[in-house]
């Protein structure tokens, strides 16, 4: 049992480290292309900082609550665990909705990914993060379903600790999207 858990953790950690290489390439591409706006508006005209701050705080809260869920399941508190995990999912959905709203608004105003190299890089970077969030949300819902289906504490604990690391990782990636894309883009 312990060996299986260790293997899964090693494999998943390897995945996360390579995934951060993917994100780094997208970050580097964005930083190089950020001024290639093809005569169109740049970040300072397109981004709303207060909107992004709310998005950031929602994702941070989601990551925090996910940590609380991790603590709860490690202490055998199933009810608290389901409550925290539910909150994690709800906040994740709120975050994703805000991100899609921003995308929809940009595209509707004619600032879609095909408008300039800057916007292509922006949509690729932020969209890849959003895709990860979507996958994480589906994963979390499957975990809740699995909890009611089999309910073996040990299995859930093993599966959930991987999800928690994934979710925290996505929030760490977002720190840099917030800083490099939005904060430094608006300035």
């Amino acid at each position, binding site marked *: 049992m312990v060996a299986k858990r260790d293997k899964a953790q090693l494999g998943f950690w390897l995945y996360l480290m390579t995934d951060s290489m993917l994100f780094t390439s997208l970050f580097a591409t964005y930083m190089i292309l950020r001024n290639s706006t093809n005569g169109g508006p740049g970040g300072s005209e397109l981004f709303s900082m207060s909107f992004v701050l709310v998005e950031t705080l929602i994702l941070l809260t989601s990551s925090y609550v996910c940590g609380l869920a991790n603590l709860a399941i490690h202490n055998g508190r199933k009810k608290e665990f389901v409550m925290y995990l539910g909150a994690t999912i709800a906040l994740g959905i709120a975050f994703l909705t805000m991100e899609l709203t921003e995308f929809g608004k940009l595209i509707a105003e004619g600032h879609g990914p095909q408008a300039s190299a800057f916007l292509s890089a922006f949509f690729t970077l932020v969209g890849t993060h959003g895709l990860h969030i979507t996958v994480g949300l589906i994963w979390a819902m499957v975990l809740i379903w699995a909890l009611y289906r089999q309910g073996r504490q040990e299995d859930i604990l093993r599966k959930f600790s991987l999800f928690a690391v994934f979710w925290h990782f996505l929030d760490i990636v977002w*720190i840099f999207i917030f800083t490099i894309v939005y904060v430094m883009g608006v300035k």
Partner: protein
Amino acid sequence: MQKTREYRRQQLRYAYAYVMAGALSIAVYALAVDSAFTDTMFAVIVLFAAALQLYIQSRYFLHLDDKEVPRWRLLSYLFTWFTLLIIAVGSVWIMNHLNYNMGMSPEQVDQYMNSQSLKGF
């Protein structure tokens, strides 16, 4: 009783990290909206805040310093960050000095790039 107290203590650790990370985000936001710093100074401060937040979240959320977490996690994490920093900083540095590296003025680089892209792939 002992177990409950330990549980609460761990919860407090999470709350501490949460408040710190949130405060940093809000501070950076306030700076972005209304800042008296020059562009370079601003970038340095903001990137430092991001690094600080990375440290807080890695320590309190990912528990990389925890005794129960195997050592290879921290080592591979640090090594990955080291590699990624070289890729990111290196790419930006090279691309922003393209004219110097090619022995051309910025206008000449643009002209050259345009003529190349007109040729197609």
